[in-house]
């Protein structure tokens, strides 16, 4: 397999990472991802999405606390 069967692409990788975080992925996409030879794009996207998630949770907590402040 010289040619990577998956075209890649930012949005598709993001979709795969989000599906992994959510915990549900279709079998078709899973097979497609696992035949890819470029693990780094998933790893980097995973790290980036994790950071964004943490920042979102922090913002959410700040916002909730600001609502509660009397």
């Amino acid at each position: 397999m010289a040619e990577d069967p998956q075209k890649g692409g930012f949005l598709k990788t993001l979709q795969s990472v989000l599906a992994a975080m959510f915990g549900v992925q279709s079998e078709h996409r899973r097979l497609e991802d696992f035949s890819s030879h470029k693990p780094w794009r998933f790893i980097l996207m995973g790290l980036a999405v994790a950071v964004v998630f943490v920042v979102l949770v922090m913002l959410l907590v700040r916002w909730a606390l600001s609502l509660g402040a009397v």
Partner: protein
Amino acid sequence: MTKRIWLLPWIGFLVSLPAAAAWQVNLSPGHTAIARDIHDLHMIIFWVCVAIGVVVFGVMFWSILHHRKSKGAEAHHFHENTVVEILWTLIPFGILIAMAVPATATLIRMYDSTEADLDVQITGYQWKWRYQYLGQDIDYFSVLSTPREQINNEEEKGEHYLLEVDNPLVLPAGKKVRFLLTSNDVIHSWWVPSFAVKKDAIPGFVNEAWVIPEEPGIYRGQCTELCGKDHGFMPVVVEVKPQEEFDQWLADAKAAAAEQAASAEQEWTLEQLMQRGEQVYNTSCAACHQASGQGVPGAFPALAGSPITTGDIDAHIDIVLHGKAGTAMQAFGSQLNAVDLAAVITFERNAWGNDTGDSVSPQQIAERNQ
């Protein structure tokens, strides 16, 4: 008729529901705004759980019945269904968020101990509570007052058995009171269910909690962190008074403290000291050394005939003032006033056949307690 027989236990259950309300297995609604909020949250979440249970088990049992083998049901073999998987992830997520929003709102309010009208420091001791009204010069211990005879089954148990103290915490109704909780020895936990306040008292830490008591009255609670032998014998009693009565109590307590200070100056006879000493002994020492002065072998030494209580007076005063590090013997120098210390030491030197005839004066205590 026979087909409906399975309804009977259900009818019995429904009929018994009003009785269950009196049985009080549920969280009590409490007597403050926060306590009612917590109770409401608890009920909402309880009914959410009931609804989920009914739906999940309903669908499950319906499926089992309607697709049973005797009706010729054939299992449908499939491996995955992304839509269903997404649904069964999103629905619980939505339910959890819906429950988290009101719960977080209440939690934020529970932690907001700012702008209090009164600060009370609460310190846990083995096995009593100390209440210090910050900035008011009021500082006292609250000790179990249930008589030993009731505990030992020698007397009928009273209505508030093990839930009564000599000096309750006194609070004004309608004012925001902040509690600063800490401990002198091990971890205790100060709990008054009616206020929905339950906070750990940890040595070296100060935890905060607050309450706005609404109705004057007496509220009872307990230590809820296993803290040793008498963990079940250090109740919490809070007396909420209307503002004017609270002010009166505050003034009286300050006057009593001043009187206490003055009594340390006066002369005390051996008899007066013995009488007072016995009371102090029974509230502060008997839990360990026993009313008989015989102690508990292997744990708490006997004071009857001990070389310290019948020997050098200064050594006796020192161990009571400073305790003994690493043992359950606390430093009573900071817990009892000079008169009580003099009285209890005099008592120990003359009770249970110790008969030394020694009398220790409050002035002597003050001198060694520098």
